């Protein structure tokens, strides 16, 4: 029997080990489903892994040496954020680590001082400030329902959180579109390369560095979907169905909307956080605090 105090470490370790595999599979499924929606057959399920292997075989070509450092930090802190989350850590700390890791990606893009990655970096920052308020409100909402910021407590609370936080959940799904780099909010870089800002924030990364960014994205997928899980944590079956549906909706939105301008992204993300999120929390707050 494994002692209790080791459990968080084991969970974190499992996340670091398995999340890229799961994330890669999700990416593979994503590409298949997207292809079907567009009337194509699509690549094999394991294509993302083949791509990754190929990236790591290439030589490490950079514009400046500090890019290596920034990309590595991006990957490491993304893994740390996710590991904290899955080992049951404090949601707010997870969010801050998560932001930190993205800042590293942005700085890596700035470091090369080239036009495309510069625009990509600025837009990535815009994306960060678009989604951050909603993510913090999500954590606050979870606290208001379960009285704890700790993921371990939230998961085991046996409260159907979604029933208390429907507005927050919808808000979260919308910022999830930004986070998963799905159209209409794929401003900083996109899965489709033929466009005006080339590959945006990742333009000047190649070979193993690009591979690391890819792995970090996979970590991120698993973490983000883990947050969806929290809303349904009282019933794992429903949670899995919810994650599948949520992801399917994201793919559908990706394939039906054109990219918007940054103004619209920032406004809509903030307005949604300000209305759906805050109103939801406000009602909850009123019920909890004012009505005894």
């Amino acid at each position, binding site marked *: 029997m494994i002692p209790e105090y080791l459990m968080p470490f084991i969970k974190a370790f499992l996340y670091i080990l398995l999340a890229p595999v799961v994330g890669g599979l999700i990416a593979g499924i994503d590409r298949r489903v997207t292809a079907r929606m567009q009337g194509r057959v699509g690549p094999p399920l394991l294509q993302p892994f083949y791509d990754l292997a190929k990236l790591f075989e290439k030589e490490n070509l950079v514009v400046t040496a500090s890019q290596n450092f920034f990309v590595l930090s991006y990957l490491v802190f993304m893994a740390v954020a996710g590991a904290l989350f899955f080992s049951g850590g404090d949601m707010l700390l997870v969010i801050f680590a998560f932001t930190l890791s993205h800042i590293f990606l942005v700085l890596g893009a700035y470091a090369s001082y080239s036009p495309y990655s510069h625009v990509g970096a600025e837009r990535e920052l815009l994306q960060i400030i678009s989604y951050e*308020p909603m993510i913090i409100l999500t954590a*606050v909402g979870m606290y208001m329902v379960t009285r704890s910021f700790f993921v371990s407590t939230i998961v085991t609370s046996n409260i159907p959180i979604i029933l208390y936080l429907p507005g927050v959940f919808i808000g979260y799904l919308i910022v999830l579109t930004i986070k998963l780099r799905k159209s209409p909010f794929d401003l900083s870089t996109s899965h489709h390369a033929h466009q005006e800002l080339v590959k945006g924030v990742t333009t000047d990364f190649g070979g193993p560095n690009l591979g690391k960014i890819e792995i970090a994205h996979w970590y991120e997928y698993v973490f983000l979907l883990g947050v969806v899980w929290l809303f349904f944590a009282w019933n794992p079956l429903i949670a899995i169905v919810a994650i599948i549906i949520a992801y399917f909706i994201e793919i559908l939105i990706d394939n039906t909307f054109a990219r918007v301008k940054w103004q619209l992204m920032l406004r809509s993300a903030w307005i949604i956080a300000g209305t759906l999120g805050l109103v939801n929390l406000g009602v909850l707050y009123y019920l909890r605090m004012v009505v005894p």
Partner: protein
Amino acid sequence: MLVGRKDSERKAIVQISAVAIGIVSLLVLIFGYDKGTLIFSVNPEPVSQIMFFIELVLAGYILYLGIRHRKLLTVFLILFQACLLLYFELGFSRNLHIGNNLFLDQFSLIMALIAGIIGSLICVYAVGYMETYHDHHKEIRDRRSLFFGILFIFISAMFGLVFSNNLLWVFFFWEITTICSFLLIGYSQSEEATNNSFLALSMNLLGGVAFMAALIYLAIVDPTGQLLGLNYLLSSGKAVALVPAVLICFAGITKAALMPFSSWLVGAMVAPTPVSALLHSSTMVKAGVYIIIRFAPVLSGTTEGLIIALVGGTTFALASFIAISQNNAKKVLAYSTIANLGLIVACAGVGTYNLMWVAILLLIFHAIAKSLMFLCVGTVEHRIGSRNIEDMGGLIVRMPKIAIMMFIGMAGMFLAPFGMVISKWAAIEAFIMAPVGLIFIAILAFGGSATVFFWSKWMGKIISVMRDQPVIEDTIKKEKWAVLYILTGLVVIVCLIFPLISSILIEPFVLNIYGQTTRLSQANLSIMLMMLCLLMIMPLSLLFYRKGTKYAPPYMAGRPVEGHMRFAGSMGVSRELELSNYYMTSLFGEERLFMVGTSLCWALLLFAGILLVGVIL
């Protein structure tokens, strides 16, 4: 200080006094940290008489300056304040018997450490800075003796302010800081500097009038003068203390440059950079938030306190937004200061025990990181001849050490395991338990993300690598380096040891007032520490990448790249490329948001005023 005429003499005097002040602050810490609140009684009569006399002389001096520069508002305010002072002195002072004039507790220790260590570091830096400053600006009259004299008076006034228990004494030191900052802002004597210094003076005098009103109110309520002792007033209950608390907090708001009074601090950037550093980090504005935090227990749970907190919250959000649209480095720093002070006041206004803890923590972290940032920007400005952020591109190549220090300073302001984020995090956790805390959480969520934006894009600018640029930081003087190194070290060290600071200074203080205290949980602390260590190890990876890396030019839409930031255009022309950050003035423009903030905060303050009149009547 006033006597040191020669540069070398002055340098020696400044360094020795700075070291002395630093050592004294540390000694006070060592002897005082475990003593709780100590109260001293000093025979007040002669001291108070001297203070009164100095105040009148200063009022006369300002009156003279105001008339000479035709600043009617200032003249009016100083006359009004002098009348109040005379009225108070003649009407009440004879009956007043305030037993204890000085006190010392953990909070005043923290403030003294900030003023003593950071303030004196800034003074040491200023010696080198002012030399270069006068080399660059031949047209400005060299009044350095006066300058350094005022710097030290300023720091001493801060000491006086935080150790005074007698509110009359607090007021005296309060006015001294106002006048010192007025003289320092107007140092260059240019028209802009003079105007801005009078702006700062008028706004702070307005606060001074409110402070004076509070004193008179207290003297009327209690002619024996017991209530003029800060410790007595704070423990006398909300019914008595609320009116003076709100009036004094109004004075605090003007001094801390919250909206609607933020313009004086923004205008103060015309002063030489060490002055800005001093105003923003360890003295002036910190005096404002100091007094508000002192009164936090009185404010907690009252409508007036909530309004003051809302003024702070509004300032935090709007100043953060405005900072996005600024490209002047000092202006960005100014708005970031205003935002952080707003946050501190928001915490103090709501005033629960855990928010008081957060407010003090914020104050410490902000002081260190902000002074470092200002001094770095000042150094950069002298080297590259510009304080525009757009001109700081590639600083990591041109001034690698300064760039890394700025990087650390900025990280201290908004990145995860560093100070400000710890405080932000604690603030969210504390607001969630406070009444109507949800508003403040929303403000934190939106304002906080704006902070991330303007810092990161600045960071991105300085670390972007431009090739073929010469290194231009080798002419910076040794003592400047020393100060910058110490401050950079402090940013990191204070992050590492903040649990210690919290447990020996902040927690006992909060416990003493509220009977309960707070801290970050042990598990989270160790995770933070692990993150901080990880962050410090990460740069070592650069060594690993030294070999086996191939360099390529950045992608320029497939055109051949010719040297740095040039690409081959059509017809054989070589074209240059320039990159600039987003400023989003349509959304976050200064003018519009400033209008919004000013009107909102005035409305809030008026509302508080009406409530206050209601209470008095």
